[in-house]
């Protein structure tokens, strides 16, 4: 008996709406929907207000943790990455305002290691003197390390430089006071002061691209795939495989900045 009642109730809830009930449902649902939409819009506006602070933050990306790996053995020092970065991000012209650059290391058999990066490596590198007795030479692309423990974020007096939920370090150019403390605090020389905006500027991992599922410009143009970009939280991301099969070094690990730019095949001279 009780089973019958139960079955009846189930059939009640599962039954198809008749016309009267449908109209009734519409009468209730439409105003409710309108109210919710209105609430939704106002909530959206609130977010937009917050968004004024950090416009690039994309909530939907909160699950990611972006990182880059660089295979030094593969870099040929063509400087395309540095060039693409300048174009993609409208980085001011000139060799002393760069978001990414390529360094050439020349380690002689005897004596001091020589490093250079003329015009960030964009136009390639000059020939070495013929009689240079070289032990080895290689290229090292550099950029913001998007540290997990970022000293630049720590020192910013207004919080204009911040870490997004997906692990990227950004600067809010509408908020930055231009005190330059972050430039001093960065151990990697990754920051510069934008000459016309007078605010701190740096690599964003091409945030405008990666949040759309594209690769950073430097990764995209690298002809040898020396730069690998990916999401550390996603096991299928190519960076996982790369980190798994290469001996990895981070720059200046003693400073405990916990960089998220990982170098494979890096010589001890790299710093």
């Amino acid at each position: 008996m009780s089973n019958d009642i139960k079955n009846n109730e189930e059939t009640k809830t599962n039954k198809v709406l008749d016309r009267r009930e449908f109209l009734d449902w519409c009468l209730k649902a439409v105003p409710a929907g309108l109210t919710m939409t209105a609430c939704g819009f106002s909530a959206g506006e609130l977010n937009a207000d917050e968004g004024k602070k950090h416009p690039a933050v994309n909530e939907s990306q909160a699950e990611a943790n972006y990182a880059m790996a660089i295979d030094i053995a593969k870099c040929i020092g063509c400087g395309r990455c540095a060039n693409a970065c300048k174009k993609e991000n409208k980085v001011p012209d000139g060799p002393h305002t760069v978001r990414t650059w390529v360094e050439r290391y020349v380690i002689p058999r005897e004596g001091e290691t020589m490093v250079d990066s003329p015009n960030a490596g964009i136009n390639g590198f000059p020939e070495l003197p013929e009689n240079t007795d070289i032990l080895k030479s290689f290229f090292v692309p550099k950029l913001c390390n998007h540290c997990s423990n970022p000293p630049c974020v720590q020192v910013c007096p207004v919080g204009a430089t911040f870490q997004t939920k997906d692990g990227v370090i950004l600067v809010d150019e509408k908020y930055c006071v231009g005190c330059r403390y972050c430039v001093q605090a960065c151990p990697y020389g990754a920051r510069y002061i934008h000459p016309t905006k007078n605010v701190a500027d740096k690599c964003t991992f091409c945030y405008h691209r990666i949040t759309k599922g594209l690769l950073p410009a430097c990764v995209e143009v690298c002809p040898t795939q020396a730069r690998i970009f990916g999401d550390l939280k996603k096991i299928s991301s190519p960076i996982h495989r790369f980190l798994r099969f290469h001996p990895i070094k981070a720059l200046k690990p003693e400073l405990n900045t916990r960089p998220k730019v990982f170098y494979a095949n890096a010589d001890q001279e790299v710093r």
Partner: protein
Amino acid sequence: MEPAIQQVVAALEPFTGYIYPNEYYLQWELLIVLYPYLTGLVAGAFILASLERVFHVKALLPVYRLALLSALAFLIAAPLPLMSHLGHPERAWEMLVTPHTTSAMAMFGFVYAWYLLVVLLLEIWFDYRVDIIKLSNEKTGFMKLVYKVLTLGTTDVSPEAVKFDDKVGKFITVVGIPSAFMLHGYVGFIFGSIKANPWWSSVLMPVVFLFSAIVSGMAMVMLIYMVTSWVRWKTIDMACVNKLAEFLIYVMLVDFTLEFLDFIHRLYESEESIQILSQLITDRLFISLILLQVLMGGLVPLVGLLVARFGKFPDEMRKMFYFVCGVLIQVGIFSMRWNVVIGGQMFSKSLRGLTVYKVHLLGLEGLLMAIVLLVLPLVVLAVLLKLLPPWLAEKQEQKTA
């Protein structure tokens, strides 16, 4: 002077070795050298005032009020170099309204406001309250109005009220000593806490800054006292300047020991950065560090003060010695700030090269601006001295005597 010649030659080249591309331009220039220098003078002058007030060093009474007013004048000027070096000065208030709590720099506004409003202004007001009331009665016209406003409506000059002023003043000074320590220790922390920079990153930095601040502040008040006495055709109280010289010697010894300890410690630890830092000293900072800071601004005035204070000299000679030593100390401490701020940016964080700093003449961060900002506190002080003459107490004492 081979290193000196090398330094001049080096200044003609843009940089040597390898520097990261973004390190080509120095971020903090001359104005940021001024900032710790001016703040140091504030802290030093206040500590000097507290010696009389809290520790009852009666010989220093003639400079007590002068020290307080000097501290105020320098404190008013101190944030100006900071403001004018910002990329967006119009956003500076964000540091106060939306401070980022983990930033040492964001705390500046609060430390500054606390020191200016709670410590210095209150102490000066309580100390001058009776004088201001008297002046508001004596003066006429506009100045009467000014003093009336400065009384903040108080009229009570009864002995009980004066006693209360004294009590409160003393309490504020007691609170003020740790505040002064905080003010300048904190400035040292701004630099000392930057782990990315091996020249700055040192736990001793706040302490070194503090003691050098006391040295510069005391010497500055001594200079101001001597100059104001000469301008007013008054005789300089020898007991007072002798006492000042003694304190200067003690604090300079502590300061020198601390800096030497820092130097030895770095040398002995011999970390990765030692090579580039040695190059920095010999190739870039030889003049400003070895010659100006250590020799001319450190050892020479220290020996000078020792000789003048404990040698057998006529008072006039002694005064001249003190004066010259005071000026040299200012040169030394200014060089110390220079060597920290500019020196810390003249080597690459790649530890592979040195860069060069050329002072601009014009512009917001130029030499002219720096001179204006150095003269400004003296102008402010002149106004303060006119408004609240520190020698009123002197006259009253003479009258009662």
